[in-house]
């Protein structure tokens, strides 16, 4: 038999019994949040293609807001319908979990994205022709144009004539909205993914749009593109690790579903697949595979030693994107990490806990210590986000329901603070765009006390000062860690909090106690969009700090994973 014929016979055998392939059973209603967002993203692409340029901005903005709000309403509906607790189950043929943590995280991601859309849509900060001649004097007041913080023509080579022409013409890039929606769609699946392949696909669905968004900064195009390339390369590496880990775990368990792997981990392999007879139940595969998958997730989380991309990407990306990434990606990635550790690998707890302890300690201390030397506000916030990832990991290693609920609460609290902080960063500008160098922030408290005070509130929340959401979150996480016997982790946690407090305080000193410089930046007056985003951030920070009980309850009810 010729090789061609043998392949042909395989085909005919496979196609021989078409009736035996069951049509997948999809619970559309239960997946509606994701479907709404992804559907809206597709419509957004169509808008780019079909709607005249001058109408695109408003239609895209409206579409994104409506879609995210509708998806959020769907999440609320599902939670109210008991899918967070009694009716929790795994939908879509075992691919996507609909349970408490998933719904809580999806709700958080959707709210965060809703606010991120506000900052994406901000068009009062950049002067229309921001190129040469856009001096602060001209940009003050009347000369504000109508462009956002995204590149006029991303395809143009930085510094080329084509780019300058695009800038002069005041082009804008409305495709950021559908790109954002695609990313959100992936993030919604990521923490709910209940088999390793879905996990991987969700990862790619939200990562690819983020790589793109990072490259789109209107100012400092080279820095932005460099950030995107770094993010893409390192992200591709980590995806490859993850995928390799998935393959090894499949070899170990003979399945990619979380429940199946968990069963093999705890009870051993029952039915040996003949094709995998040599590998199934081999602990080496399990350990290496689990480690590789964890690496992929820890990369997204930004934990030391997989954090190298964070500062560069946070600095180079357009600030609204940075805010969105810092908040939503972290939520999604921690959700996936929690599910993996709590559903797939609880039987391996004694193996991964010491490792995660180490990672948590390294992350807390590393983030806090390196942040001290930063001179750029966006890099500083990037390192601070690393330190916060460490605090979150302290909750993750608690391996208790309290641990899950505390991490959920912390994620909610942290993401609003982050969004608000980056929104403030977009406001502080000089002739070169955003003035992110810390030295330029000197005396900001004298020029615009309100903006500086708001930023100080965010910094204090980052530092975990009582009466802010940061404190409530930190307390919840450390409490869970202490109860699980990780007392020394808590001690390291508070020590690194003390170190971290130093650089947050330094920024406050700079803003309030230093004299403003003559050529310092001005604070732009934003449209109601950014104002709303910042106001929501401040409100959430204070409400979660003063009266966290309702949200702790919510997180507590949502802390059981379905298996």
């Amino acid at each position, binding site marked *: 038999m010729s090789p061609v014929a043998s392949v042909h016979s395989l085909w005919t055998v496979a196609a021989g019994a078409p009736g035996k392939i069951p049509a997948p059973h999809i619970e559309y209603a239960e997946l509606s949040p994701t479907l709404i967002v992804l559907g809206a993203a597709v419509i957004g692409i169509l808008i780019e293609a079909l709607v005249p340029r001058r109408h695109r901005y408003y239609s895209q903005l409206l579409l994104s807001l409506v879609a995210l709000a509708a998806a959020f309403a769907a999440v609320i509906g599902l939670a109210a319908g008991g899918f967070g607790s009694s009716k929790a189950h795994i939908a879509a043929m075992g691919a996507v979990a609909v349970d408490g943590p998933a719904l809580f995280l999806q709700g958080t991601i959707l709210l965060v994205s809703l606010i991120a859309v506000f900052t994406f849509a901000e068009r009062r900060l950049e002067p229309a022709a921001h190129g040469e001649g856009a001096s602060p004097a001209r940009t003050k007041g009347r000369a504000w144009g109508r462009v956002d913080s995204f590149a006029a023509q991303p395809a143009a080579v930085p510094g080329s004539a084509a780019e300058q022409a695009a800038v002069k013409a005041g082009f804008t890039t409305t495709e950021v909205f559908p790109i954002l929606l695609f990313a959100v769609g992936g993030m919604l699946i990521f923490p709910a993914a209940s088999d390793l392949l879905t996990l991987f696909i969700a990862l790619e669905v939200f990562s690819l749009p983020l790589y793109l968004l990072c490259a789109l900064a209107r100012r400092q195009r080279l820095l932005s593109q460099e950030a995107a390339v770094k993010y893409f390369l390192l992200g591709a590496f980590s995806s490859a690790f993850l995928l390799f880990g998935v393959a090894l775990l499949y070899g170990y368990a003979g399945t990619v579903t979380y429940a199946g792997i968990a069963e093999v981990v705890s009870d051993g392999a029952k039915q040996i697949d003949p094709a995998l007879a040599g590998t199934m139940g081999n602990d080496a595969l399990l350990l290496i595979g689990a480690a590789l998958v964890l690496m992929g997730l820890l990369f997204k989380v930004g934990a030391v030693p997989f954090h190298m991309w964070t500062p560069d990407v946070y600095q180079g990306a357009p600030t609204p994107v940075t805010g969105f990434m810092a908040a939503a990606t972290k939520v999604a990635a921690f959700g996936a990490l929690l599910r993996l550790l709590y559903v797939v690998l609880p039987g391996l707890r004694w193996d991964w806990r010491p490792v995660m302890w180490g990672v948590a300690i390294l992350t807390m201390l590393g983030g806090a210590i390196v942040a001290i030397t930063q001179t750029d506000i966006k890099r500083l916030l990037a390192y601070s986000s690393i330190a916060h990832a460490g605090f979150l990991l302290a909750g993750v290693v608690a391996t208790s329901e309290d641990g899950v*609920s505390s991490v959920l609460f912390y994620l909610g609290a942290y993401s609003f603070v982050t969004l608000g902080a980056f929104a403030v960063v977009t406001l502080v500008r000089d002739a070169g765009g955003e003035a992110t160098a810390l030295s330029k922030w000197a005396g900001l408290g*004298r*020029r*615009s*006390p*309100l903006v500086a005070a708001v930023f100080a509130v965010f910094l*204090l929340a980052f*530092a975990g*000062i*009582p*009466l802010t959401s940061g*404190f*409530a979150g930190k*307390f*919840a996480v*450390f*409490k869970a860690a*202490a*109860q699980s016997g990780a*007392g020394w982790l*808590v*001690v390291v*946690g*508070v*020590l690194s*909090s*003390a170190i971290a*407090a*130093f650089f947050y*305080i*330094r920024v406050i*000193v700079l803003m*309030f*106690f*230093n*004299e403003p410089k003559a050529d310092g930046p001005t604070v732009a007056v934003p449209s109601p969009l950014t104002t709303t985003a910042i106001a929501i951030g401040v409100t959430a920070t204070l409400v979660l700090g003063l*009266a*966290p*009980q309702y949200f*702790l*309850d919510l997180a*507590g009810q949502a802390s059981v994973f379905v298996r």
Partner: protein
Amino acid sequence: MSFPLLTVVAAVPAAGAVATAALPAARRTAAKWLALLVSVVTFALALVVAFRFDPGSKSPYQFTESHAWISDFGVRYALGVDGIAVALIALTTLLIPFIILAGWHDADPLEEAAPNRRWRPTQGFFALILAVEAMVVISFEATDVFVFYLFFEAMLIPMYFLIGGFGDRAGGEDEDGAARRRSNAAVKFLLYNLAGGLIMLAAVIGLYAVTADQLGSGTFSLQQIVEARAAGRLHIGTGTERLLFLGFFFAFAVKAPLWPLHTWLPGAMGESTSPVAVLITAVVDKVGTFAMLRFCLQLFPEASSWATPVILVLALISVLYGALLAVAQRDIKRLIAYASISHFGFIILGIFAMTSQGQGGATLYMVNHGISTAALMLVAGFLISRRGSRLIADYGGVQKVAPILAGTFLIGGLATLSLPGLAPFVSEFLVLVGTFSRYPVIGIIATLGIVLAALYVLVLYQRTMTGPVKPQVSGLPDLRVRELVVVAPLIALLLFLGVYPKPLTDLVNPAVDHTLSVVDKKDPKPTVQVDAVPGGGRHGHAVREQDVEAAK
């Protein structure tokens, strides 16, 4: 439900802070008056608490309020006061109006400064003072460890802005340098206290874990924990208890401040304006010593006994070290700061002597030290604002030019060195007697602190007020009416409490006895019968005169 009096005492200044901060930039004077009014109302409310408080009552805490707050953390919004807390709330609310009056012009914008519609330092200054007051009052009232911790930490932020944002413009030519030193002092203050607070946070979480482990559900209620321990339902392992105690004590020792954690205080007091310095030493730092009494001793009695020897030695070092460094200072405000360190040493000595005289005396000491330091520091502030210098060497012969100022300064100084007849004498005497009855050697060595106190106060007075009139000093005006209004009542109070401290001792003693009963310590049988009310002043008298001799 009864009227939430304690909440109101704290809520009034908090609301006042918001209202003051909200006034527009041009309404500076209105902001001052509003702040003053609010602080006086708060004092009136505190007096209501003090007069309706029943010292003889059986229950350890009165006016209790308790509401569910964060049930996930086992936190209840639980307030209640014992005699110690009432006395300290009265002190705090009493001092704030004087602090506001004394700082009336401290936060006026510089005349040459460009007008800026948004920058409102005056409103900010008074709003921050009221915010600190609200948080301090809540920390005195909290009977829930978590609630206490929240406000104990949160008060750092307004304090930090008060220290870093407002200077006394006594830096001379070098105003930029002064601003830098000031912001450094503020950062140092914040980092020390934040580090202390965060270590305490670990202990707070540990306490929760222990109670959750043994009582089924975690709790922060002081009373519940104390009762559970007494009933044997809660047993904290020795090692754990010691670690938790150290976590709590570290934070309070930073705040108090105890040697060797004191180094933030001289900078913070020296660089800030004198009303803010009073706020630090007379009000905020008292939370530290108060918390030792209320939380360290009651939550961890065994560990407290275990740590007592070391703490007593540290307190003793504080007493002597603070006094010695005060003698060596060239800067008036830093001198008073080091004197305060010495006094805080006495307070901690009294607390950990674990006798009723010692702890009663320590509580009185907190109140009296607040009043006497306020008097001395505020007069010093008036003096410094006249001359524009903090250096002792820049003064001389002031008493010829401004006799009233010099006189009030002298009385404040004499109170600081615990002259008999003035209030601090009573408390210092009680602390020494209390310490001596259990730890005679330490008591004797601590007496040296008094000798040194006489030295630094009298030398300070001699160098600044007596002698030939220096040319720059010759034109100094005497105290103005506003300044007299600040100083006169404080001095009157010092005299009154010096001869008749009974109202205060009656208030404080039952609470002290309660604390001691929790710690399970009984007074050693006294060899000499000592009454809590001085009339027994004779004992100290001889010593005192020797001191004055020695000082000369």
